[in-house]
C-alpha cells in the first residue's frame, strides 16, 4: 500500500502545479462592452523589419507596417478602394506629364516639432536616389531627370552629382519636379512610401534616426525591441484625414503565424492580416472567426509565367491550351478555401481601369484546350516551378493536375526551398518550365501592373517578354497627361498582352484577415495591412 500512497502524493503534486499554472497564466480576455475607447491600444501581428526603418529603405510588409503610419506622403490612398487623394499636397499640377508643380499644405509638423517644407521632400528624394546610400527603393526615383547622374547604371562608375537636376525648390511650400520622360501616373506614384519627406534631423545623423525615426504621419515612434515589438503612439498634431481613433499601436513580432493566430483567438492580439495554413485548411477559419473575419481586396495578381527563353514554350497555341485547361473556379474554391477569386486579366480587380474578361483564354474550356494543344504539337512534359513554402505549392499542384487531366500531358510541380532560392532561379533565368509569377502593386494604378512586368527590359520582366507594339502603347500612355485617356491607352496595351499570353492569369487574392473581439472595427487595406484609420478598440 505504501506505493499507492506515494503515487497519490505525486498526483497531488501534479494537481497543485496545474492549479499554480492556472493562477499564473491566462486571464487577458477583454470584455467587449461595445464602447469605443479613444485611448485604447491596438495590437497587430508583425514580423521583424528586414531593413532600417527609413521610408526609402523599406519595401516589405514587416517594415512598412511600422514606417507607413509614421509618415504621410503627398498623396494618400483611401483604405476601402485605394482611391488617391491629396494628403500633404495642396495641389499637383502638370500640363505635359513631364513637369510637375507641387504645392504642399502649410502648418504640417514632423513629430519633433519642425515644420514640413518643400525642401524636406527634395532632400529625402535625393538621398533615396543617391547610389552610395544603397537604398532599397532607389529605383522608384528613376523617372526624375538627373537620376542617371546620381545613380549611374554601371555599378563601378562614380555618381557625377549628388542631387537630381529635376528637383527644384521654388519656396518653402512649393517645388517643381521635371521627369526625364513624360509619365502620367507620377501623381499617383508619389503616394508610395519611398516618397515620404524626411526631417532635417535625419540628414544630421541617419544612423541615429534609423533607431528612432521621426515622421509626419498619424503615429509617432515610441520604442523598438528587436524581435519583440515596435511601439507607436498617436501624434496629436496630425492634420491629415486618416487620423487614428485609438492611442497606442503595438506591433508585436511573432516567429510563427500559428502562434499569432492562437493569440488572436484568445484576444491577446487584435489583428492579423494573413491566416496560417492550418486555419485555412477545410475553411476552419470561418467557424473560428465568425464576425471577426475581415476581408479586403489586395492589389495583386497571381499568374503562371511561361518564360520565352525555355525551348518549346514559345508557342502561342500551347499557351492558350494551358490557360484554357486550368479550372480556376474549382481551385480557388476547394484548394484555396475562398481566399482567392479566379483572375481574368492582368490587372487586379478594383483598380481603376480593370475590365472583366480581358483575357479571353482564361476560362475553363476542356474542348478548346484540347484543340489548341493538338495544334501546338507540343511533346514532352510540362512543369510549374515555385517556392513550396507559405501555401504556394498546393494551388499550383492543383493547376498542374487540372492541366494533366484536361490535356492528357504529364505535368509536375517543381519546388524550390524558399523564396530566396526561388528568386535567384527567376532572376538568373534558370527556369526550365513554367513558373509562379505573382505581383503586388506598390501603388494603385493600372500602370504598375503593366510597365514593370511587360515592357521590354523592365525591372521585373523575368520571362523576357518583348513586343514593340506593347512598348509603344505603354510609352504613349505614360506620356498622356489626361488621366482617363491614359487609362484607355493602358487598357489597349493590356489587350495586346492578353493576345500574346506571356503569362497566364490564374487568381486574384481577396485578402482574408482577422480581428479580435477587442477590436470593434478594423479594415484591411489594399497593401495587406490593417487600415488604421478605420480601427476602433473597446475598453
Amino acid at each position, binding site marked *: 500500500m505504501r506505493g499507492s500512497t506515494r503515487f497519490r502524493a505525486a498526483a497531488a503534486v501534479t494537481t497543485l502545479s496545474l492549479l499554480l499554472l492556472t493562477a499564473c*497564466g491566462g486571464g487577458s480576455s477583454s470584455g467587449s462592452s461595445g464602447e469605443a475607447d479613444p485611448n485604447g491600444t491596438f495590437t497587430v501581428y508583425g514580423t521583424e523589419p528586414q531593413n*532600417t526603418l527609413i521610408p526609402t529603405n523599406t*519595401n516589405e510588409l514587416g517594415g512598412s507596417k511600422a514606417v507607413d503610419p509614421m509618415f504621410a506622403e503627398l498623396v494618400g490612398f483611401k483604405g476601402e478602394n485605394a482611391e488617391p487623394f491629396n494628403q500633404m499636397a495642396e495641389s499637383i499640377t502638370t500640363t505635359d506629364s513631364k513637369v510637375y508643380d507641387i504645392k504642399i499644405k502649410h502648418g504640417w509638423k514632423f513629430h519633433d516639432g519642425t515644420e514640413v517644407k518643400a525642401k524636406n521632400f527634395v532632400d529625402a528624394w535625393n538621398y533615396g536616389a543617391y547610389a552610395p546610400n544603397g537604398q532599397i527603393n532607389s529605383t522608384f526615383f528613376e523617372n526624375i531627370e538627373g537620376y542617371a547622374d546620381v545613380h549611374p547604371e554601371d555599378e563601378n562608375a562614380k555618381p557625377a552629382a549628388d542631387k537630381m537636376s529635376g528637383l527644384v525648390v521654388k519656396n518653402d511650400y512649393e517645388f517643381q519636379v521635371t521627369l526625364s520622360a513624360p509619365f502620367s501616373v507620377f501623381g499617383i506614384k508619389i503616394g508610395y512610401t519611398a516618397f515620404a519627406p524626411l526631417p532635417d534631423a535625419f540628414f544630421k545623423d541617419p*544612423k541615429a534616426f534609423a533607431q528612432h525615426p521621426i515622421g509626419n504621419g498619424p503615429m509617432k515612434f515610441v520604442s523598438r525591441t528587436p*524581435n519583440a515589438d515596435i511601439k507607436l503612439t498617436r501624434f496629436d498634431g496630425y492634420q491629415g484625414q486618416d487620423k487614428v481613433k485609438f492611442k497606442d499601436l503595438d506591433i508585436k513580432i511573432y516567429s510563427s503565424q500559428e502562434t499569432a493566430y492562437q493569440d488572436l483567438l484568445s484576444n491577446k492580439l487584435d489583428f492579423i492580416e494573413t491566416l496560417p495554413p492550418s486555419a485555412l485548411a477545410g475553411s476552419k477559419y470561418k467557424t473560428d472567426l465568425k464576425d471577426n473575419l475581415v476581408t479586403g481586396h489586395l492589389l495583386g495578381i497571381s499568374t503562371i509565367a511561361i518564360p520565352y527563353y525555355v525551348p518549346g514554350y514559345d508557342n502561342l497555341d500551347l499557351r492558350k491550351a494551358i490557360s484554357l485547361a486550368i479550372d480556376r473556379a474549382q481551385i480557388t474554391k476547394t484548394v484555396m478555401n475562398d481566399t482567392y477569386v479566379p483572375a481574368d486579366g492582368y490587372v487586379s480587380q478594383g483598380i481603376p481601369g480593370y475590365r472583366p474578361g480581358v483575357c479571353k483564354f482564361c476560362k475553363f474550356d476542356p474542348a478548346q484546350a484540347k484543340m489548341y494543344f493538338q495544334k501546338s504539337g507540343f511533346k514532352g512534359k510540362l512543369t510549374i516551378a515555385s517556392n513550396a513554402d507559405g501555401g504556394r505549392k498546393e494551388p499550383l499542384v492543383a493547376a498542374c493536375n487540372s492541366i494533366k487531366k484536361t490535356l492528357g500531358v504529364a505535368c509536375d510541380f517543381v519546388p524550390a526551398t524558399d523564396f*530566396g532560392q526561388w528568386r535567384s532561379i527567376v532572376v538568373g533565368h534558370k527556369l526550365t518550365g513554367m513558373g509562379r509569377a505573382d505581383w503586388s502593386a506598390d501603388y494603385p494604378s493600372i500602370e504598375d501592373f503593366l510597365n514593370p512586368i511587360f515592357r521590354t527590359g523592365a525591372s*521585373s520582366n523575368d520571362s523576357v517578354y518583348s513586343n514593340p507594339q506593347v512598348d509603344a502603347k505603354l510609352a504613349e500612355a505614360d506620356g498622356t497627361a489626361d488621366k482617363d485617356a491614359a487609362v484607355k491607352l493602358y487598357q489597349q496595351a493590356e489587350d495586346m498582352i492578353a493576345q500574346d499570353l506571356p503569362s497566364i492569369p490564374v487568381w486574384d487574392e481577396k485578402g482574408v484577415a482577422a480581428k479580435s473581439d477587442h477590436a470593434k472595427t478594423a479594415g484591411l487595406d489594399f497593401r495587406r495591412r490593417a487600415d488604421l484609420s478605420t480601427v476602433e478598440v473597446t475598453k
Partner: protein
Amino acid sequence: MIRYVLRRLLQLIPVFFGTTFLIYTLVWAVPGDPFSGKCGQQACPQAYIDLMTEKFHLDDNLIVQYFKYLGSLFTGDWGETFNGNSVGELIANSYPITLRLAIIAVIIEAVIGLSAGVLTGLRGRGFLDNLVLVSTTFLISLPVFVTAIVLQIVLGTEFGLIDASVSDDPGIGELIVPGIALGSLSMAYIARLTRTSIAENRHADYIRTAIAKGQPNSRVIGVHLLRNSVIPVLTFLGTDLGALMGGAIVTEGVFNINGLGGLIFRGIQNRESATVVGVVVLLVLVYLLMSLIVDLLYAVLDPRIRYD
C-alpha cells in the same frame, strides 16, 4: 587539481577555434545569393547589394572573412544584422530569458525525473514502475514541437489556462509550460537513467555493508546510494543545460519567446547569417563551460576519481 583545470582550460582554445570556424563556414558558405528575395518581387538595386557586400566583407574569401569576424568578436563586436541591429545587443536582450527557461526546464526534469527514477529504482517492478515506463516511453517518442504545440493548444486556446504566447520579458510563471515542453524529453531520460543506476547500486557491496552496520534507511539511500548513483545523471544534466539553450529553438519558436532559441529560429528563417553565427558561438562557449564544470564536480562527488 589546479593543473587539471588549467589543462582543461587550454584545451578549450583549439576547440573554440575549430567549432567557430566550422560554423562560420557552414553558415556563410551556403550556396545562393544572400540578397535574392530580400527585395520582394523586384531584384535588389545594385547599389544596395554593393553596400551590403562591403559591410559584410562578402568579397573576401572565407578565411579572410572568418578572421575579420573573429577580430571584431575579440573587440566585443558581434556584428550587425542586415536590418542594422547589433547582434551583441540582441544576444544581451535574449540570453537572460533563455537562461531562465533552461533553468526552469532543468529544475523540472531534475525534480520530476530524479524522484520518479529513485522511486522506481528502489521499488522495482510494480504499478508505479510500469506507469513511469509507459509515460517515459510516450514522452521520448514525442518530438518537442508536438509536445509544445499540444500544450499550447490544449492549455492555451482550448482551456484558456495559459496564454498561447509569452510576453516580451516573461516571468517564471509564464515560462513553466514552455519549460515542461522543453524539459519533457530529458525528464524521461533522467527518470530512466536514475532508475537503472539506483537499481544497479542497490545490491552493491557497500550498500549491504552500510545496512549491516545498522545505518538508518534514510542515510543509506540519501548518502550512500544517491551519491554514487547520481554521477551519470549529473553528466547528463550538465551537458543538457547547454543542449537546452540550443534546444529551445523549437519551443521558443512555438511560444514566441524572445530568447536565444527564438533568435536562431528567426535568423535561420530570414537568413541572418551574422545572428546565427553569433548565437551559435555563444552556445559553443556555454557547452564547453558546462562540460568543464561537470568534470570538476565528479571529483567533489566521488573522491576516488583523481585527476593527477
